[in-house]
């Protein structure tokens, strides 16, 4: 299996299925772990970093965590491959960007249900991904992976502070639970700020999925916990499953209903304009493409439009991004050339001319 194989489809987390998939795109659980006896990555020397990388590699690759696992050495990878992995949310921007002298890698399950980063901010960042609202499932898998790795690897741990991490914001359980949500109706009705405020009051982080700023492109938001000390993994998970996420889902549904009741024509107009643009544009930037895809998706979930399925929309969500676009067309392109290729791709996949 190679990165090229991976870049063709959309992977597990964008399958477009799973509970509440009309609002919840994907669920993700991450564990931060460090090996006992080694300084954290930022303080380790080159030799120690290599030793950590090798210990982790041999555990991850021989323990058969999955039938088929791809090991990518990032220090030797071309920038476009690293960017591709970032776009698929398999590695962090930080891991992609680190200087060449930090040996680092990622192990990816063929079905992309897990990705394990080595020598990111912590020695190990284990992530498990699922489409839709499937945190319980994701948690069982990551816990199993953690148990298997722990059979041979000594994790830095203290009774007082739990799993020790380079940044004290992660110490304790080292758990980060994130749910990616599509909230176009809350955005259109201007209610999104209320949700953000409520989430922050509950000590949750709300980020836009794309872009590094706070602006959420494509109306995609990632909601994640920030507290890792003094709370069990189960409590953290339960907060999300029982309280936070169902509430936000209910808000989004209400907002969609309100749009249908009070601004039906305006909603139709948005959806069909988006459809028309995606099918006819000749030059298309990433931000615009993401926004149009969002409105078409809203149209599907409110039964205004049925000319495309969610799976195709999800694939386009990935394929319209720079590295994917270049991987698919098989050539490096300038931003201007990419905007043209992006418009071509949309017309081709959606049936426009």
């Amino acid at each position, binding site marked *: 299996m190679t990165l090229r194989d991976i870049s063709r489809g959309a992977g597990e987390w964008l399958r477009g299925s799973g509970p509440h998939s009309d609002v919840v795109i994907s669920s993700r659980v991450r564990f931060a772990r*460090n090996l*006992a*006896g*080694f*300084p*954290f990555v*930022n*303080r380790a*020397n080159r*030799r*120690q970093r290599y030793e950590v990388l090798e210990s982790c590699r041999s555990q991850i690759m021989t323990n058969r965590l999955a039938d088929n696992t791809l090991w990518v050495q990032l220090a030797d990878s071309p920038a476009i491959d690293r960017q591709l992995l970032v776009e698929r949310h398999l590695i962090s921007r*930080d891991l992609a960007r680190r200087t060449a002298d930090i040996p680092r890698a990622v192990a990816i399950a063929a079905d992309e249900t897990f990705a394990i980063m080595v020598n990111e*901010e912590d020695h190990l960042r284990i992530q498990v991904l699922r489409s839709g609202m499937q945190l319980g499932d994701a948690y069982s898998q990551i*816990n199993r992976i*953690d*148990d298997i790795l*722990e*059979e041979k690897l*000594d*994790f*830095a*741990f*203290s*009774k*007082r*502070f*739990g*799993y*020790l991490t*380079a*940044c*004290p*914001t992660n*110490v*304790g*359980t080292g*758990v980060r639970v994130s749910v990616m949500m599509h909230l176009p109706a809350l955005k259109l009705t201007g209610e999104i*700020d209320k949700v*953000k*405020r409520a989430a922050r009051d509950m*000590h949750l982080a709300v980020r836009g999925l794309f872009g590094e700023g706070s602006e959420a492109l494509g109306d995609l938001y990632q909601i994640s916990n*920030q*507290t*890792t*000390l*003094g*709370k*069990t*993994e189960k409590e953290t998970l339960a907060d999300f499953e029982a309280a936070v996420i169902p509430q936000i889902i209910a808000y989004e549904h209400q907002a969609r209903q309100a749009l249908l009741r009070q601004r039906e024509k305006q909603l139709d107009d948005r959806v069909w304009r988006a459809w028309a643009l995606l099918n006819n544009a000749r030059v298309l930037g990433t931000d615009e493409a993401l926004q149009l895809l969002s409105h078409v998706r809203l149209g599907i979930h409110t039964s205004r439009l049925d000319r495309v399925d969610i799976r195709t929309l999800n694939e386009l969500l990935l394929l319209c991004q720079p590295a994917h676009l270049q991987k698919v067309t098989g050539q490096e392109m300038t931003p201007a050339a990419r905007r043209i290729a992006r418009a071509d791709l949309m017309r081709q996949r959606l049936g426009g001319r």
Partner: protein
Amino acid sequence: MKYKCDKCDRPATHHAVVRVKGQNIQKRLCEQHAAEEGLPIKSAHAPINELLTNFIKMADGQSQPSDKIKPAAATRRDRACPDCGLKFSDFRDKSLLGCSGCYKAFEKALIPLLERAHEGGAQHVGKVPRRSGGGEQRQLQIARIRKRLDEAVTAENYELAAQLRDDLTGMESGNAPAAPRQLDPGTPEDDRP
């Protein structure tokens, strides 16, 4: 809900509490004005960075940004981790600790910070690793042997390195010697409990 920058109309991305003449003053600034004021540039760790800078400033009674801390005061407070050498000021700058030992070395300063970052939590209650959960002492021992191993390799003392490696293998497969072996009689300070 977004605040505007105190100095212009852009949204405020930095929030700081600064103490001036005994009074806490709230500052909300955009990226550019924050930079002009000498506030740390937003990074991946903006929340803890902000928390840290503000917290440390409050604790020190400082009214100036960190680069203007009086040198004497700075060095007096700037302890280093005995295991990895990281100074507390390094942690303040980058929000990253250097090793497990840092949690012990800076415990006093970290606890109030952890409580603020974790809704009051300062005691782990989650999963405990089956293997290394009980053995903090053992982890510390392993860390110290590893450190000496690294020094031995750097000094090209391969005989010592091989011996240390054997000790590590023994310890990491769970067969920690009942009584810690004296590994290198030449450096007694490493035998501290």
